């Protein structure tokens, strides 16, 4: 007799027996996935009540300090979600926190994959998809920040518009398409809404499905020797071990994000006020995952270039070319490394960072550089708190951008060498001890 179970696809019938990773660092990708689920669920609630309209109306809701203030319908609808809808404030803050955690988990997950060499054949395609996902997540964050049409979000849109018009040849046309004409045209909100709620989530969903499908087919890497890893997958079985742990993790991620949304204030648009083309918030910092671009804008030397009588303005280099270069390096890394090392074979063993000192040092140096840029994104606040002239803070950051990556990379390289040498010495001692006892 054929039961229902027999008719299920092979992959599903195999799932309880499939081997899943056990090492805790493999949960980072799952945290990203679960945060995305929270984003979709809370996003459905938010988009139900959100009004992507730039029409200007007078706010007359329950938040007294803004009563009588003129604002777009978009802003007023987000105010209404926050102050009038059941659980609205919690859902909105949970959504924002989930976005912050989503990108953070993606970045940490990418770091795990990078430093253990898990991007090598046969997982290069999946690394590529992962980098694309990271870019899509950051882009969707940018449009999401713009949607409430508050003063901070509007300032972010202003920066995005300046990037777009700076692109050589097609810039003004691209900006016109994306921002519905010149900056501060409120019709742009509708386009941002389409991108944030439909286009980018669909792209993220499709890429994510391919990413997970490939993980399933290619299997995960493991901390064993390469020979063992080539012959068998080690970890824990789908049922019950992995299923229970992952269900628990899902509950924890959902609960922690809701707890953050309920208790930690984020994006208080009622304090920022509605967008006004004649004003900007002070200080103005974007969410952390866009902060490094903000830092580049502040401290990198302005470098407008005249090409054939046309000007390429400096925001193109700091705001467009630099992020693009970072993503190109990430995308190209597995292929460049395979070419440079001549190692084109399949690998299933996760490497220890210390066993690849050059890769580890370069990775640490790159991360250090991005961290310095991220910190430079709030250099006005630091100048204010330290009572140092802003020009000196800028100069300091220019020096740090060169020095910190060099130091961090060298320290990482030396640490790798010291760790492996220590192990070699211990191995020699053990060998000589054995010889002596024999």
């Amino acid at each position: 007799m054929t039961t229902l179970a027999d008719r299920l696809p092979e992959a599903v019938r195999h799932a309880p027996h499939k081997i899943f990773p056990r090492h805790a660092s493999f949960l980072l990708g799952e945290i990203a996935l679960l945060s995305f689920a929270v984003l979709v669920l809370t996003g459905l609630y938010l988009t139900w009540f959100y009004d992507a309209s730039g029409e200007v109306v007078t706010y007359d809701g329950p938040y007294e300090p803004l009563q009588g203030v003129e604002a777009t319908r978009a802003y007023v609808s987000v105010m209404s979600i926050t102050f009038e809808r059941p659980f609205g404030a919690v859902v909105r803050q949970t959504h924002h926190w989930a976005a912050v955690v989503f990108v953070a988990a993606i970045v940490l997950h990418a770091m795990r994959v990078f430093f253990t060499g898990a991007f090598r054949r046969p997982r290069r395609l999946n690394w590529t998809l992962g980098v694309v996902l990271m870019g899509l997540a950051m882009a969707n964050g940018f449009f999401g920040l713009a949607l409430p049409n508050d003063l901070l979000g509007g300032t972010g849109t202003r920066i995005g518009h300046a990037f777009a018009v700076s692109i050589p040849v097609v810039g003004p046309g691209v900006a016109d398409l994306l921002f519905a004409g010149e900056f501060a045209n409120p019709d742009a909100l509708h386009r941002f809404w389409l991108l944030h709620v439909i286009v980018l989530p669909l792209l993220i969903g499709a890429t994510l499905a391919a990413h997970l499908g490939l993980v399933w087919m290619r299997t995960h890497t493991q901390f064993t020797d390469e020979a063992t890893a080539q012959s068998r997958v080690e970890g824990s079985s789908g049922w019950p071990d992995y299923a229970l742990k992952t269900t628990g993790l899902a509950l924890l991620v959902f609960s922690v994000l809701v707890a953050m949304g309920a208790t930690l204030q984020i994006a208080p648009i009622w304090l920022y006020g509605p967008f006004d083309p004649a004003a900007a918030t002070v200080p103005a910092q974007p969410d952390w995952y866009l902060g490094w671009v903000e830092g580049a804008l502040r401290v990198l030397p302005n470098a407008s270039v005249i090409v054939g009588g046309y000007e390429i303005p400096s925001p193109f280099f700091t705001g467009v070319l630099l992020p693009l270069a970072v993503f190109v390096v990430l995308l190209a890394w597995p292929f460049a490394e395979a070419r440079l090392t001549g190692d084109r074979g399949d690998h299933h063993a996760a490497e220890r960072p210390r066993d690849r000192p050059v890769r580890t040092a370069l990775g640490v140096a790159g991360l250090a550089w991005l961290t310095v840029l991220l910190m430079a994104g709030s250099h006005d606040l630091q100048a204010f708190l330290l009572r140092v002239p802003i020009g000196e803070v800028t100069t300091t950051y220019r020096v740090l951008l060169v020095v910190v990556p060099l130091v961090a990379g060298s320290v990482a390289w030396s640490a790798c060498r010291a760790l492996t040498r220590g192990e070699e010495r211990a191995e020699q001692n053990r060998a000589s001890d054995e010889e002596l006892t024999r």
Partner: protein
Amino acid sequence: MDRAARVKRPPPGLVTAVGVGVALIGAAVVVGIVSGESRLAAAVAAFGGVVIGVGVVSWGRTSHHEHDHEPRETKGPRFGRRTTLAAAATATVAVGVAVVPAISRLGEATRRLRSTAWSAGTPVVDAAGERVRLASIDVGDLVNVYPRGWVGDADSQAIVIRTDPARLAPSVDGPLAAEFGVVAYSKLCTHMACPLGLYEQQSGTLLCPCHQALFDVLANGEVLRGPADRPLPRLPLDVEADGLLVARGDFTDAVGTGFWGRP
């Protein structure tokens, strides 16, 4: 051995955890809807979720088996030259399709970026839409102004500053500068087009709140400190017989951030 049989019986602690968690969530949701204390309710519900989550994770950990394994098979498409070329071709076509409409708008978009609503004879009004009278601007004042009919317009917004004419650099021209010490600039920073907010009257400088560029309003809006690299465009002003301000034309340069095709 049947894997289902390997699940250990849930420990009594887990049963308690799930019970407590579910009760907390249920109570919190009901109380939250009834009382409107939604943040507190959500925090309590989340705590309930954490209790259940910790219970389930620890159950999973107690029932796991050290070093389970299966033979390795890697399936799925390989990332060869063909996949790379196909992906590159798809990306190129996608970018191409997106760029076509952008190019078709290029001329119109560039024209709009180059000009604002100011032209010769446009009356100068303040944020309330009232015409600005020269005599009503005192030395040390800064007035936010717009072309009449365009109050609130993002790229036409300008600032009129009045200072002691002796403080202005000799190169500052215009009929109102030498006699009255009145100069006008675009309000948009030439770095990223943020509105310049902080005017320090004593030093005659304007600071951009976004990336801290500093401009000298006494010397044709020259950049005193980066990251901007272009002086503020000036708005040429004149005064009519009745003492009201008018523009003598559009700004001396395209306002705001740099763009491809800026004259």
